[in-house]
């Protein structure tokens, strides 16, 4: 049971977004510009993976499955592949640059001050640009907000992980900007 009467029985972040549409609009616009907008040298899959990884570190079931499913859709892989990245990205078959960015994201999840100059330098040696480092930090910080919003109000998360996979394709096509929380 959510901590407040969200009035409609919608899962995850869609509950509080329907409850307070005024704040939902900029929240969705932020997700759109960070995760879906193609004006970015990080792929959509990489950005969704950063979100999914931070959400898993924050133990937010709803967000890590929504965004893990999006990453899975873009990477054209299966659930175990995403789970392996979340569990131990260093051993996963992903680029060294993405590993270095996930390390930065993992530090941001603990607290901004955990990011070290060495981590940033390490990401640069694998070709990460200023803008990519910026976006990694902001995506990680944004998920520290989204995860807290979802869990801090004790929203409901469907436990069947396939449901999230089934919804990923339409979200990838439509993006977040005009997200209809009732659909």
């Amino acid at each position: 049971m959510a901590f407040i009467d969200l009035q409609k029985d919608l899962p995850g972040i869609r509950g509080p977004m329907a409850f307070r549409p005024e704040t939902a609009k900029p929240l969705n616009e932020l997700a759109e510009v960070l995760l879906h907008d193609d004006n970015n040298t990080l792929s959509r899959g990489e950005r969704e993976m950063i979100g999914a990884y931070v959400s898993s570190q924050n133990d937010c079931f709803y967000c890590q499955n929504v965004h893990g499913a999006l990453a899975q859709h873009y990477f054209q892989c299966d659930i175990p592949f995403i789970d392996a990245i979340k569990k131990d990205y260093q051993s996963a078959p992903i680029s060294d640059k993405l590993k270095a960015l996930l390390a930065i994201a993992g530090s941001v999840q603990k607290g901004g001050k955990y990011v070290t100059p060495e981590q940033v330098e390490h990401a640069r040696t694998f070709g990460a640009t200023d803008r990519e480092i910026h976006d990694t930090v902001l995506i990680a910080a944004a998920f520290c907000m989204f995860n807290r919003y979802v869990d801090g109000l004790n929203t409901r998360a469907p436990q069947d992980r396939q449901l999230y996979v089934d919804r990923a394709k339409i979200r990838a096509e439509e993006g977040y900007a005009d997200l209809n929380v009732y659909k």
Partner: protein
Amino acid sequence: MPYIPLEEHLPGITGLLEYRKDSAQPIRELTQILLRGQSTFTEGERELIATVVSSGNNCTFCTTAHTAAADLLIGNTETAKKVKEDINTAPVSGKMKALLTIASMVRESGKSVTPEAIQKAKDEGATDVEIHDTVLIAALFCLYNRYVDGLATALPDDSGYFNVLANRLVRHGYTRLPQGYDHLKKEKI
């Protein structure tokens, strides 16, 4: 030294919001709605939530900025100071104590918020919208604090900076100044 090149006359969050304006826009809008929009909270109360979270996250820039804004809005420096030291003995209402406690839990993790803390806030008269906004303001400042410190942004050289910033936050709010921020370069000697 910030990890990415930011304009020197724009310390803390201010340089980041100018570095990438398209991601800044929804963050600014969300903040404006939550901290300055129509609400049963006073603007000072909402700045106290921002202050408590930023202080708990040890984010010097955000804590100093929102303490200064709270001081200006509340009309004293004691309230914000005491709230940062100990919510339970601070000179705020029972309802605000309960909501600031929820904000502190959200700061730790969304999962740290307890049904008891929510019930306490409701018993003190907090509405569902007030609880919602408390959680979202606290979550938003977890974003801000990580953004500011995660990129190692600079603190201002001049301690008077925060008074100027607080005045802007009180008089203008959180939307981008129409003229931008180049005029601040001239003020720096």
